[in-house]
């Protein structure tokens, strides 16, 4: 029986950690992820879990100690945000190349500067090439569900990669919502015990981790990582199927909302999808216009073919990025989706919008404007600016 609760996104992650009872959690406080280690510390202080907490002196050390613990044979996790993840950057690569099944609870927050504590995806998008699986959430329920699924994905022998479970800072991390929690025993059965094959503390086999690999060997390690990322695709779907059996909640690489007959589509990541859905419902009920949404859940590995297929019937697409990459042409999601369309030899009209940077609100009205713009673009075949910001303080330029 599922348990009905009201939890914030951070509470939901902490609750999942309590249910999973991992071995080691090194963590360093940073807004807005701080609550996660705080809740875990409380569980430990009250004897509710036997996880060992390491009070590291920085996020670099948090990821370093997580790597050490995971390499030693422990199920190891950490949590961070923004600059904390940026400080871990070097170590993110090491974790992935060492093929350690670490799970990181990332509460997305804008990177400095200027310093800002609110949501955008610049932290995780900056880490998109580190070799981590990235899973994003719209709601507290999805954060909880994704966090539980992260372990069987990461620890699968075909994968052996670290997983970043992302949620939007404050919007879901601190916003309290109704949530359905699985029972402890169900979660424990789903995640299973951790039985690594090779680890430092294995008494029957010595091992060495972290070699210097010269040009003769380095490239093969990268190819092997890529294979693991390819393999992750089927594992993510298998785990989702198993999760659906347990909870009835269905997950895939992305969610399609009102896409069956959609002519105008938005592609987006994270909590703003909820606002977009509200706009879709309103537009469809008042005007009958065929608007839809693709909400990306898995950004790494990137579901290229599936996205192209989902967009195969639309006239115009707005790809919405919640982070800049200063290519001066597109954002990270914009670039990936356009590449997917090109590979599929599809050419709907495409526009790339930037929204919500540093926690700027995006409203139902903004999304209605987006869909209006898509309709115009589809009619005129003119995209005046491929690379437009939504909700700037200056008078917004008409597209």
């Amino acid at each position, binding site marked *: 029986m599922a348990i009905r609760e009201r939890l914030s996104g951070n509470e939901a992650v902490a609750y999942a950690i309590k249910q999973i009872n991992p071995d080691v959690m090194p963590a360093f406080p940073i807004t807005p992820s701080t609550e996660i280690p705080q809740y875990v510390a409380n569980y430990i202080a009250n004897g509710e879990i036997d996880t060992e907490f390491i009070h590291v002196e*920085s996020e670099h050390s948090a990821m370093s100690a997580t790597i050490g613990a*995971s390499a030693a044979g422990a199920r190891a996790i950490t949590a961070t945000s923004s600059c904390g993840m940026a400080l871990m950057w070097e*170590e993110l690569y090491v974790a992935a190349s060492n093929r350690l099944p670490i799970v990181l609870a990332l509460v997305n927050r804008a990177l400095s500067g200027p310093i800002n504590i609110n949501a955008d995806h610049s932290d995780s998008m900056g880490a998109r090439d580190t070799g981590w699986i990235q899973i994003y959430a719209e709601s507290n329920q999805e954060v909880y569900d994704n966090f539980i699924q992260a372990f069987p994905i990461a620890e699968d022998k075909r994968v052996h990669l670290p997983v970043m479970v992302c949620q939007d800072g404050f919007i879901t991390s601190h916003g309290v919502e109704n949530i359905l929690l699985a029972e402890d025993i169900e979660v424990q059965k789903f995640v299973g015990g951790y039985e690594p094959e090779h680890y430092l*503390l294995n008494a029957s086999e010595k091992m060495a981790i972290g070699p210097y690999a*010269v040009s003769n060997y380095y490239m093969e390690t990268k190819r092997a990582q890529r294979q693991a990322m390819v393999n992750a695709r089927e594992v993510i779907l298998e785990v989702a199927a198993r999760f659906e059996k347990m909870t009835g909640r269905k997950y895939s690489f992305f969610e399609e909302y009102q896409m069956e007959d959609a002519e105008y589509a938005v592609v987006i990541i994270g909590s703003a999808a909820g606002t977009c859905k509200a706009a879709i419902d309103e537009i469809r009920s008042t005007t009958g216009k065929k608007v839809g949404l693709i909400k990306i859940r898995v950004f790494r590995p990137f579901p290229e073919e599936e996205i192209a297929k989902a967009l195969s019937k639309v006239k115009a697409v707005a790809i919405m990025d919640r982070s800049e990459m200063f290519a001066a042409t597109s954002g990270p999601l914009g670039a990936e989706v356009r590449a997917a369309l090109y590979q599929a030899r599809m050419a709907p009209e495409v526009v790339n919008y930037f929204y919500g940077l540093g926690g700027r609100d995006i409203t139902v009205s903004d999304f209605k404007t987006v869909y209006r713009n898509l309709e115009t673009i589809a009619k005129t075949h003119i995209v005046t600016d491929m690379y437009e910001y939504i909700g700037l303080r200056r008078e917004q330029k008409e597209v």
Partner: protein
Amino acid sequence: MEKTTYNFKEVMSKPERLAPGHRMCAGCGGTIAVRTVLRALEEGDRAVIGNATGCLEVSSFMYPYTAYEDSYIHNAFENAGATLSGVETAYHVLKKKGKIQENFKFITFGGDGGTYDIGFQSLSGAMERGHDMVYVCYDNGAYMNTGTQRSSATPQYADTTTTPAGKVSAGKVQVRKDLAAIMAEHHIPYVGQSTFTSNFKDLYTKAQKAIYTPGAAFLNVMSPCPRGWGYESSEMMRICQLAIDTCYWPMFEVIEGRWILNYEPKNKLPIEEFLRPQRRFKHLFKKENEILIGQFQEEIDRRWEELRNKCN
């Protein structure tokens, strides 16, 4: 566990835990430090060895070969302390959960670059948290892996590739950081500073104490680098003896806050004796630089007095 008597022959005939075949330079002090420290592990005791990036790491674990007879982890340059603290914590929790039965010891090695400088914060955190581990700094007084750039362990006036002696420069401007004292101020159970003596007793016994004292321990081992310091590799033991006889490198330990001086030279030699055989100090022996040697001596004397006061 500490043996009351030290038998040189017996100690030296223990099986090596750093196998030959690694690619460190002939006459490297770093590998001698590693071999001596690892010899202090009781035979049959298991260990996980950590390592900061540096000469030692890139030369002893080149894929697909490792020189270590024990399990080993290298992570990056600045995080040997944090990495091994993760391993050590995993050990405690897995033991508590009954997943492992065997006893393990945890020893990590870093050069002075990875320890005094870029890894200083990670080291401080690991020591402050009191992990049951030993951090061993093999201090060769510069970033040797990248070609002898100055570190905060480099002695004043040393000619390095980033503090070259030149027409208007007499080498490194600043004096060296006293890392062993800083670690002692973390109030950890054991801190030792040592180097290579003719029978290796000092370093061996300190390594034994560091490994078998519960809690965090730090060892600072002066490990000369023939290429970076500029001396014939056969001269290493003489250089080490001069370092302790001039009081450039005092050998001491701090046990539960109690400072102990382990070696007091009968005749304290002038610092020139230590400086002269090394190319990195050659410029100090020009006529116009005599005053600098005097200043070097004053700094040695001041620190030696300070140390003796702590040890009284």
